[in-house]
């Protein structure tokens, strides 16, 4: 990893934080990823363009950006504008064929696992050495689809990496009340695949673990699970009344803020002076604001029957070849 890479990672994390703060301010339904930037950026940084990803809904757009999509295009999707993939239809995340990001057509969690496993199967059948990375929360690992997918991926040694962003809460339910084993990673052994636990607030530790798993999968070593231990600073969504955890608990995790930790590290490496940090913060905030501005200025879709009915039954050219 070069010094340039380290600063790129820092920039992604800063953008992630500013993006999340902007969205939290916009809507009470926003699922904040505050405090989970290391887990998200570390997971998706430096994957191949052809590798496929299915990001966790919490921090998904950050995943989109790290995978290659500009924040302008992210905002175009959020605003349902005409130049996007989603164009105002569907549930939130339309994916991207250009960046090999899978869509999330509906809100029930679980489909991410099976759909991703199907992509990995296709990669195997077509003789590709690309890999799928599917990212999900602690609560989601309780779905049946998780188990069906790990089992099948393991049986067939499919090129897929399962990355759990364990922020310890599924809405109001703490992991200790929903997962029967001490760690999510324990579940990997049940399917004969490696399960690794990493500090989810250490972006380099996350990145190294995921890259190793991806490399293993790419070279025929089969799937594995990486569990990133992190913490959800905000509520499940902005208007979450909470009441199920203590302020002390939240404060103790604020002190382990992944961006502050990485900043410290960069500082120690002599890569981040105060001036550079200020400049990078400014650039990141500008990137978010400019992206938002460009998207808001971009053409809207037409509110017509024709647009509403378009692509219900696809025809003509399209899809992945």
């Amino acid at each position, binding site marked *: 990893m070069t010094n340039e890479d380290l600063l790129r990672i820092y920039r992604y994390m800063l953008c992630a934080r500013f993006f999340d703060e902007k969205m939290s301010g916009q809507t009470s339904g926003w699922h904040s990823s505050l405090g989970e930037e290391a887990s998200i950026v570390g997971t998706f940084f430096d994957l191949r363009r052809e590798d*496929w990803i299915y990001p966790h809904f919490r921090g998904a757009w950050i995943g989109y950006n790290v995978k290659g999509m500009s924040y302008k295009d992210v905002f175009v999707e959020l605003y349902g504008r005409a130049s*996007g*993939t*989603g*164009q105002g*239809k*569907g*549930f939130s995340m*339309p*994916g991207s*064929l250009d960046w090999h990001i*899978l*869509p999330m*057509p*509906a809100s*029930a969690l*679980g*489909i991410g*696992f*099976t*759909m*991703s*496993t*199907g*992509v*990995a*199967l*296709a*990669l*195997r*059948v*077509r003789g590709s050495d690309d890999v799928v990375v599917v990212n999900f929360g602690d609560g989601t690992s309780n779905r*049946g*689809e998780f188990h*069906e*997918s790990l*089992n*099948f991926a393991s*049986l067939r040694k499919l090129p897929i990496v399962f990355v759990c962003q364990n922020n310890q809460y599924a809405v109001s339910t703490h992991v200790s009340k929903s997962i029967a084993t001490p760690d999510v990673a324990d579940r990997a052994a049940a399917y004969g695949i490696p399960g690794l636990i990493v500090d989810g607030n250490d972006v380099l530790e996350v990145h190294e673990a995921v890259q190793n798993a991806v490399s293993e999968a790419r070279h025929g070593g089969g799937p594995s699970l990486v569990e990133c231990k992190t913490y959800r600073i905000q509520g499940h969504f902005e208007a979450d009344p909470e009441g199920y955890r203590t302020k002390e608990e939240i404060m103790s995790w604020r002190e382990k803020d992944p961006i502050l930790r990485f900043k410290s590290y960069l500082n120690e490496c002599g890569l981040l002076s105060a001036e550079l940090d200020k400049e990078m913060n400014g650039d990141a905030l500008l990137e978010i604001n400019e992206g938002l501005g460009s998207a808001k200025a971009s053409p809207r879709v037409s509110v017509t029957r024709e647009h509403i009915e*378009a*692509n*219900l*039954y*696809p*025809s*003509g050219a*399209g*899809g*992945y*070849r």
Partner: protein
Amino acid sequence: MRTLTFSQAIGEALIEEMHHDSNVVLIGEDIGGWGGLGGAAKGLLEKFGSDRIIDTPISESLIAGGAIGAGIAGLRAICEIGRGEFLASVVDALVNNAARVSYVTSGKMRAPIVVRSAFGTNGDRLHPHSCEALFLNSPGLKVIMPSTPYDVKGMLKSAIRDDSPVICLEHQYLYDNCKGEVPENEYFIPIGSADIKRHGRDVTVVAIGNMVYQALAAAGDMSVEGIEAEIVDLCSLAPLDKETIFTSVSKTGRLVIAHEASKTGGFGAEVCALVSEQRGIVLKAPISRVAGMDVPLPLSYPLQMMVLPGKQSIIEAIKGIMN
């Protein structure tokens, strides 16, 4: 012209399409070993190998969801969800997700999957439940129910080449018991096209699946009494060939709808509503639905026979509206 069974016709469709496009794969339980649903895929494992004939554990969510993902990434997966009842386990995958992939990505990504599933009874089989009604309120999903060897081969080939997700419901009595003429040369039958299996002037009977044969048998009996029934085999439930239904009912003025699934909220209700809404159709009698009783289908043979509609119930329905 040669005669094939329903199952053999399916097998030919599968082989032809797998030869035509190396991206076509089969995913499901016991396909390699047993030949899958109706035994139609027998021999395909030896022909195409285990990369394309993919046997899975008992994992329906994975089969359906996996087919979607494989489709997005360039394969055309024909997945088998063994029995109609099992389809209820994959409603999330099919209704919430497969149906929406193209729509929410403006056509850029697609789920070009076919889901084959077996249902229906002859009184001596397990897994008889009909389940088409689960999928008719899901825009984006196509649902077909071919009832002859000729129809199933042509429609399945179209379904495999279609970029929409298509559920092909196969009445399992037909697999080995139904034989029919199938041309040697390649042909396709478009999805969304009904077929008039028998012309008649007095009453329209819209039927699906094995009820097509019950309706034809009823028509034979009625003809002796001077009543000529027109039997419309819908073939395709979604999209539905409204024009053929409307034309026929305009001509006869009388409509009986026959399906094996239980009556309330069944497919017949949709056909009733469509005909009732259509201007210009003058009905000589109320529409009559012939369907299963509103109970879960009993296993015991005599009970099942009473619950299920058949030739006799169609005859009674026709007589009831002929005044």
